[in-house]
């Protein structure tokens, strides 16, 4: 067992005929993922990397039994693509697309949830479970099968950190890049229970960023519900304070959202917090050792 994806994962790529869609379809195949269908309206009947392309998700699901979608459709069409996948009964959608308006996510997220579909992203690198399946764009080269889980709000920084785990001779159970947008389908708090109940995960690495309160919320969840050792890193400790959401945003977060607040919250619940990315691998080694005791 792994988290969210496994050997039964059958991937459908929405926007498969675009550059990104094609490149990453090949990468997912090389990882060993069963990519069974592609969808690009108007391009039905063609083949991309040997994968049959359909005009609609409903048709793709009916003909191939796809159960997971990887969405590369550009932002203006991303909402429609997601709703189409949800209505076709797809239960897991990884939205790689960046610059999806959060107003669209305010519709996409509750709609998907009401139909029992989980969204990862948008603006995310997706999920990878080495030896099983990858849905998204995390480079294959960073993975190695193992027992460390990773959840992250970052993209390339995740690759760096997952790679670091490999370089100290450990491997990963499942890695999920949740995306750093204001509204995401799956937060740390949503993902934590999946790793808690995954028998193949011994320890978890949580990679956060400044802004929002997702890390503080995660710490609160860990305090009561998460029993495995956690290693954390918060990027942006030295970043100049930005007021992206203006003054009203500051009211909602009230002193949370800074690196200090996140580090303090995570340390308070026993997480080993790295100050720099290169400190993570050793902390993971320590965490795994403590988990085995």
């Amino acid at each position, binding site marked *: 067992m792994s988290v969210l994806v496994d050997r039964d994962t059958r991937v459908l790529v929405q926007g498969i005929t675009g550059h990104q869609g094609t490149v990453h379809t090949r990468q997912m195949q090389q990882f060993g993922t069963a990519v069974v269908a592609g969808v690009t309206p108007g391009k039905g009947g063609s083949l991309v990397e040997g994968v049959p392309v359909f005009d609609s998700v409903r048709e793709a699901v009916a003909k191939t039994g796809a159960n997971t979608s990887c969405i590369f459709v550009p932002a203006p069409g991303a909402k429609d693509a997601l709703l189409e996948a949800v209505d076709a009964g797809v239960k897991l959608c990884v939205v790689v697309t960046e*610059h*999806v308006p959060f107003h669209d996510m305010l519709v996409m997220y509750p709609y998907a949830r009401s139909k029992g579909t989980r969204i990862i992203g948008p603006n995310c690198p997706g999920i990878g479970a080495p030896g099983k399946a990858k849905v998204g764009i995390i480079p294959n080269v960073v993975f190695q099968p193992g027992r460390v889980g990773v959840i992250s709000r970052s993209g390339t920084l995740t690759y760096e950190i997952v790679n670091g785990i490999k370089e100290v001779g450990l491997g990963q159970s499942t890695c999920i890049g949740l995306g750093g947008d204001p509204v995401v389908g799956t937060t740390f708090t949503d993902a934590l229970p999946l790793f808690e109940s995954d028998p193949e995960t011994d320890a978890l690495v949580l990679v956060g960023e400044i802004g929002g309160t997702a890390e503080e919320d995660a710490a609160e969840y860990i305090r009561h519900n998460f029993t495995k050792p956690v290693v954390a890193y918060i990027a942006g400790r030295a970043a100049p304070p930005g007021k992206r959401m*203006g003054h009203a*945003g500051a009211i*909602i977060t009230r002193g949370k959202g800074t690196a200090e607040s996140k580090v303090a919250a995570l340390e308070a619940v026993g997480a080993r917090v790295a100050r720099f990315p290169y400190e993570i691998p050793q902390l993971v080694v320590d965490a795994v050792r403590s988990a085995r005791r």
Partner: protein
Amino acid sequence: MVKLAEWQGKKVFRSYGIPIPRGEVARSPAEAQELARSGKVPLPCVVKAQVLSGGRGKGGAVRFANTPEEARDATAAILGLDFKGERVREVLLEEKLPIGRELYVSLTLDRSQRLPVLISSAQGGVEIESVPDGSIDQQSVDPFPGLTGYEKRQVSKVLGLSPPQARSIGGVLESIWKIFEQEDAELVEINPLAIVGDGVVALDSKVIIEDDAAFRHPEYAEIRDDRTELEEIAREKEIAFVQLDGNIGVIANGAGLTMATLDVLKELGGAPGVFLDLGGTDDPRKVSEAFLLMARAKPAAVFLNIFGGITRCDTVAKGLVEAMGQVPPSERFPLVARIRGNNEAEGIQILRAAGVTAISDLREAAQAAVEAERRPA
């Protein structure tokens, strides 16, 4: 993000039926005088600098005028002010209303709830951060039913309004909700919302439109924060550009890796200057474009931190060496490259052969960049 100036936000307010004072924009003292003289702006009036930063009242950027001449002089005093780094180019002249209490209302996104939130307070007219939590009411608004009657009644109660005032604010709240949804706003804020007789009037506006929704709103394309030429080029190439105080230029791919790079440089005593974030890509063409853009910013040294996952590091390195050839010798600067991922050894070899300090360890590479910046050219 697109931050609307006060007058632009009020134009949006007016089109959605939110009451605002009568007023006009002036770009010269003579124009202000004429607006007051002709009665287009009733006297006495308020003259307000149109800048995006708050705290105008204390900063001398808001003045009062009783005559057309005073309107002219007030405008002359405000135009050209350097207000918190922003040059004042426009003023808004507005009738001075007999106002009662000043209130606060806003609508924005609560990321952790994944829902919009309606914020209100009876303590308006001051910075909302300075108002204690107990005096601020927050209600999540579900986009599916939209803003409900009971949510509006709750705001009226918190603000202590009379029945006619409650009716007036009900309309305002409905309009704020519509603006938030239809204009793809990140923030719609009225502070202060003033009681005037039996109704309420928006004395100020703060409207921020979401950048990612720009494709739905060509009407805001003209309104942008002031950008330098380099920032403009970066925007066109979809490279995030951040200007900091230091002298080390930084190129990285992805916001998280960019921030982590900054954390490491600062720890080692380095002072990062221009920051270019390529986004999640390791496309060699984009790396080279960023390098040439960085060259124009004339940094003392450049630290390039790329995690190459999809593209091979040697491809990125070749592109980079080619781009270096395009920078005239007199404008060259020390470059420290830290590249990791696919074919990293080959990439590092190519860069070293071209005279670049190439190191795969992040800490060591950052240390080299800090030293390169300190070394006299």
